[in-house]
Protein backbone atom coordinates (compact mmCIF):
# COMPACT_ATOMS: atom_id res chain seq x y z
CA UNK A 1 0.00 0.00 0.00
CA UNK A 2 1.38 3.42 -0.96
CA UNK A 3 1.24 6.42 1.33
CA UNK A 4 -1.90 8.26 0.20
CA UNK A 5 -0.36 11.56 1.28
CA UNK A 6 2.65 11.13 -0.95
CA UNK A 7 1.17 13.11 -3.83
CA UNK A 8 -1.45 15.24 -2.09
CA UNK A 9 -0.88 16.94 1.21
CA UNK A 10 -3.34 16.12 4.01
CA UNK A 11 -5.95 18.69 4.97
CA UNK A 12 -5.89 20.12 8.49
CA UNK A 13 -8.72 17.76 9.47
CA UNK A 14 -6.82 14.76 8.08
CA UNK A 15 -3.71 15.88 9.96
CA UNK A 16 -5.66 16.06 13.23
CA UNK A 17 -7.40 12.75 12.61
CA UNK A 18 -4.09 11.06 11.85
CA UNK A 19 -2.55 12.42 15.04
CA UNK A 20 -5.55 11.16 17.04
CA UNK A 21 -5.30 7.70 15.46
CA UNK A 22 -1.55 7.51 16.11
CA UNK A 23 -2.15 8.44 19.75
CA UNK A 24 -5.05 6.01 20.20
CA UNK A 25 -3.33 3.05 18.53
CA UNK A 26 0.18 3.76 19.83
CA UNK A 27 0.65 0.20 21.12
CA UNK A 28 -0.18 -1.31 17.74
CA UNK A 29 2.13 1.16 16.06
CA UNK A 30 4.94 0.18 18.40
CA UNK A 31 4.39 -3.57 18.35
CA UNK A 32 3.56 -4.19 14.69
CA UNK A 33 6.90 -3.03 13.25
CA UNK A 34 8.78 -5.10 15.85
CA UNK A 35 6.78 -8.22 14.95
CA UNK A 36 7.17 -7.54 11.24
CA UNK A 37 10.90 -7.21 11.74
CA UNK A 38 11.03 -10.54 13.60
CA UNK A 39 9.26 -12.26 10.69
CA UNK A 40 11.58 -10.62 8.16
CA UNK A 41 14.62 -11.72 10.18
CA UNK A 42 13.41 -15.33 10.27
CA UNK A 43 12.72 -15.29 6.52
CA UNK A 44 16.14 -13.79 5.86
CA UNK A 45 17.95 -16.28 8.13
CA UNK A 46 15.92 -19.36 7.15
CA UNK A 47 18.76 -21.04 5.24
CA UNK A 48 21.24 -20.44 8.08
CA UNK A 49 18.79 -21.74 10.68
CA UNK A 50 18.11 -24.85 8.59
CA UNK A 51 21.84 -25.43 8.24
CA UNK A 52 22.41 -25.08 11.98
CA UNK A 53 19.52 -27.47 12.65
CA UNK A 54 20.91 -30.01 10.16
CA UNK A 55 24.29 -29.86 11.83
CA UNK A 56 22.73 -30.10 15.28
CA UNK A 57 20.84 -33.21 14.19
CA UNK A 58 24.15 -34.90 13.47
CA UNK A 59 25.54 -34.30 16.96
CA UNK A 60 24.54 -35.33 20.46
CA UNK A 61 22.24 -32.86 22.26
CA UNK A 62 22.89 -31.72 25.84
CA UNK A 63 20.32 -33.23 28.17
CA UNK A 64 18.87 -29.82 29.16
CA UNK A 65 17.91 -29.11 25.53
CA UNK A 66 15.72 -32.18 25.21
CA UNK A 67 12.00 -31.54 25.69
CA UNK A 68 8.85 -33.61 25.50
CA UNK A 69 6.23 -32.23 23.12
CA UNK A 70 2.50 -32.78 22.98
CA UNK A 71 2.97 -35.72 20.59
CA UNK A 72 4.60 -37.59 23.47
CA UNK A 73 7.96 -37.68 21.70
CA UNK A 74 11.27 -36.20 22.77
CA UNK A 75 12.54 -33.30 20.70
CA UNK A 76 16.00 -31.71 20.71
CA UNK A 77 16.05 -27.91 20.72
CA UNK A 78 18.53 -26.61 18.16
CA UNK A 79 17.65 -22.94 17.51
CA UNK A 80 15.51 -20.40 19.40
CA UNK A 81 13.30 -18.73 16.77
CA UNK A 82 11.24 -16.39 18.96
CA UNK A 83 10.48 -16.12 22.64
CA UNK A 84 9.31 -19.61 23.72
CA UNK A 85 9.38 -20.91 20.14
CA UNK A 86 12.14 -23.33 19.22
CA UNK A 87 13.32 -25.11 16.14
CA UNK A 88 13.81 -28.74 17.11
CA UNK A 89 14.85 -32.06 15.64
CA UNK A 90 14.21 -35.64 16.57
CA UNK A 91 16.57 -38.41 15.53
CA UNK A 92 14.91 -41.19 13.57
CA UNK A 93 16.43 -44.35 12.10
CA UNK A 94 17.05 -42.78 8.68
CA UNK A 95 17.93 -39.19 9.61
CA UNK A 96 15.94 -36.59 11.51
CA UNK A 97 12.50 -35.10 11.74
CA UNK A 98 12.22 -31.33 12.30
CA UNK A 99 9.60 -29.26 14.10
CA UNK A 100 8.79 -25.79 15.32
CA UNK A 101 7.72 -26.18 18.93
CA UNK A 102 6.07 -23.53 21.11
CA UNK A 103 6.55 -23.69 24.85
CA UNK A 104 3.72 -22.49 27.11
CA UNK A 105 5.42 -21.58 30.40
CA UNK A 106 2.15 -21.34 32.38
CA UNK A 107 1.40 -25.01 31.85
CA UNK A 108 4.85 -26.28 30.95
CA UNK A 109 3.49 -27.75 27.71
CA UNK A 110 5.24 -27.88 24.32
CA UNK A 111 3.03 -27.68 21.25
CA UNK A 112 4.20 -28.67 17.79
CA UNK A 113 3.34 -25.92 15.31
CA UNK A 114 4.93 -27.34 12.15
CA UNK A 115 6.80 -30.56 11.45
CA UNK A 116 8.42 -32.40 8.57
CA UNK A 117 11.53 -34.15 7.23
CA UNK A 118 13.04 -31.07 5.57
CA UNK A 119 14.28 -28.34 7.92
CA UNK A 120 13.94 -25.62 5.26
CA UNK A 121 10.36 -26.59 4.41
CA UNK A 122 9.32 -26.68 8.08
CA UNK A 123 10.74 -23.20 8.61
CA UNK A 124 9.07 -21.93 5.47
CA UNK A 125 5.67 -23.21 6.66
CA UNK A 126 6.25 -21.51 10.01
CA UNK A 127 7.20 -18.14 8.53
CA UNK A 128 4.28 -18.32 6.09
CA UNK A 129 1.99 -18.73 9.10
CA UNK A 130 3.58 -15.67 10.70
CA UNK A 131 3.04 -13.69 7.46
CA UNK A 132 -0.63 -14.67 7.55
CA UNK A 133 -0.77 -13.50 11.15
CA UNK A 134 0.60 -10.08 10.14
CA UNK A 135 -2.11 -9.96 7.45
CA UNK A 136 -4.86 -10.75 10.00
CA UNK A 137 -3.43 -8.03 12.25
CA UNK A 138 -3.30 -5.49 9.39
CA UNK A 139 -6.93 -6.16 8.40
CA UNK A 140 -8.09 -5.89 11.99
CA UNK A 141 -6.23 -2.68 12.76
CA UNK A 142 -7.50 -1.22 9.50
CA UNK A 143 -11.08 -1.97 10.64
CA UNK A 144 -10.40 -0.58 14.10
CA UNK A 145 -8.90 2.65 12.76
CA UNK A 146 -11.80 3.18 10.33
CA UNK A 147 -14.31 2.65 13.12
CA UNK A 148 -12.41 4.97 15.46
CA UNK A 149 -12.26 7.73 12.84
CA UNK A 150 -15.93 7.43 11.90
CA UNK A 151 -16.94 7.72 15.56
CA UNK A 152 -14.55 10.57 16.32
CA UNK A 153 -15.20 12.52 13.12
CA UNK A 154 -18.73 11.55 12.00
CA UNK A 155 -19.72 12.28 8.42
CA UNK A 156 -16.14 12.93 7.25
CA UNK A 157 -14.35 10.90 4.59
CA UNK A 158 -11.09 10.00 6.32
CA UNK A 159 -10.27 6.92 4.28
CA UNK A 160 -6.91 8.45 3.28
CA UNK A 161 -6.06 8.82 6.96
CA UNK A 162 -6.85 5.16 7.63
CA UNK A 163 -4.77 4.11 4.61
CA UNK A 164 -1.89 6.35 5.76
CA UNK A 165 -2.03 4.78 9.22
CA UNK A 166 -1.82 1.24 7.78
CA UNK A 167 1.03 2.38 5.55
CA UNK A 168 2.81 3.73 8.61
CA UNK A 169 2.34 0.39 10.43
CA UNK A 170 3.64 -1.55 7.47
CA UNK A 171 6.70 0.56 6.77
CA UNK A 172 7.71 2.27 9.99
CA UNK A 173 11.04 1.20 11.44
CA UNK A 174 11.15 -0.14 14.97
CA UNK A 175 11.49 2.77 17.40
CA UNK A 176 14.92 3.28 18.96
CA UNK A 177 13.75 2.44 22.46
CA UNK A 178 11.86 -0.62 21.30
CA UNK A 179 14.67 -1.62 19.00
CA UNK A 180 17.14 -1.68 21.88
CA UNK A 181 14.82 -3.83 23.96
CA UNK A 182 14.14 -6.06 21.01
CA UNK A 183 17.80 -6.46 20.19
CA UNK A 184 18.48 -7.39 23.80
CA UNK A 185 15.73 -10.00 23.59
CA UNK A 186 17.18 -11.29 20.36
CA UNK A 187 20.63 -11.64 21.87
CA UNK A 188 19.05 -13.62 24.61
CA UNK A 189 16.71 -15.68 22.50
CA UNK A 190 18.69 -16.27 19.35
CA UNK A 191 21.35 -18.31 20.99
CA UNK A 192 22.00 -21.31 18.84
CA UNK A 193 22.27 -24.48 20.82
CA UNK A 194 24.12 -27.26 19.14
Amino acid at each position, binding site marked *: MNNPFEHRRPTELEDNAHAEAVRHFADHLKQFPASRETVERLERDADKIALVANRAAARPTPKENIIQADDGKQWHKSVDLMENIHFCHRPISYGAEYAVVEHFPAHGTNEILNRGWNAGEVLKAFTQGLRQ*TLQVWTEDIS*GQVREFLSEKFPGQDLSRVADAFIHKCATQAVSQKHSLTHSHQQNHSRGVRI
Partner: protein
Amino acid sequence: MLGVNYFSVYRLIQRGKLKPCRALRGKLLVPRTELLKLLATE
Protein backbone atom coordinates in the same frame (compact mmCIF):
# COMPACT_ATOMS: atom_id res chain seq x y z
CA MET B 1 -6.45 -7.95 27.25
CA LEU B 2 -4.87 -11.34 28.07
CA GLY B 3 -1.62 -9.93 29.39
CA VAL B 4 0.21 -10.94 26.22
CA ASN B 5 1.34 -8.94 23.22
CA TYR B 6 -0.78 -8.35 20.13
CA PHE B 7 1.27 -10.68 17.93
CA SER B 8 0.56 -13.58 20.31
CA VAL B 9 -3.17 -12.84 20.24
CA TYR B 10 -3.30 -12.58 16.43
CA ARG B 11 -1.26 -15.80 16.19
CA LEU B 12 -3.93 -17.54 18.27
CA ILE B 13 -6.60 -16.17 15.91
CA GLN B 14 -4.67 -17.16 12.78
CA ARG B 15 -4.19 -20.69 14.14
CA GLY B 16 -7.89 -21.00 14.97
CA LYS B 17 -7.28 -21.23 18.73
CA LEU B 18 -9.25 -18.06 19.32
CA LYS B 19 -12.38 -17.63 17.22
CA PRO B 20 -13.38 -14.01 16.69
CA CYS B 21 -16.51 -12.71 15.02
CA ARG B 22 -15.99 -10.23 12.23
CA ALA B 23 -17.66 -6.95 13.17
CA LEU B 24 -18.32 -3.87 11.07
CA ARG B 25 -15.50 -2.76 8.72
CA GLY B 26 -13.53 -6.00 9.13
CA LYS B 27 -12.67 -5.37 12.76
CA LEU B 28 -12.32 -8.54 14.83
CA LEU B 29 -14.23 -9.02 18.06
CA VAL B 30 -13.36 -11.89 20.36
CA PRO B 31 -16.35 -13.02 22.44
CA ARG B 32 -15.76 -13.26 26.16
CA THR B 33 -16.75 -16.95 26.05
CA GLU B 34 -13.92 -17.62 23.57
CA LEU B 35 -11.40 -16.03 25.93
CA LEU B 36 -12.66 -18.05 28.87
CA LYS B 37 -12.58 -21.23 26.78
CA LEU B 38 -8.99 -20.53 25.78
CA LEU B 39 -7.91 -19.73 29.33
CA ALA B 40 -9.43 -22.99 30.51
CA THR B 41 -7.68 -25.12 27.93
CA GLU B 42 -4.28 -23.41 27.54
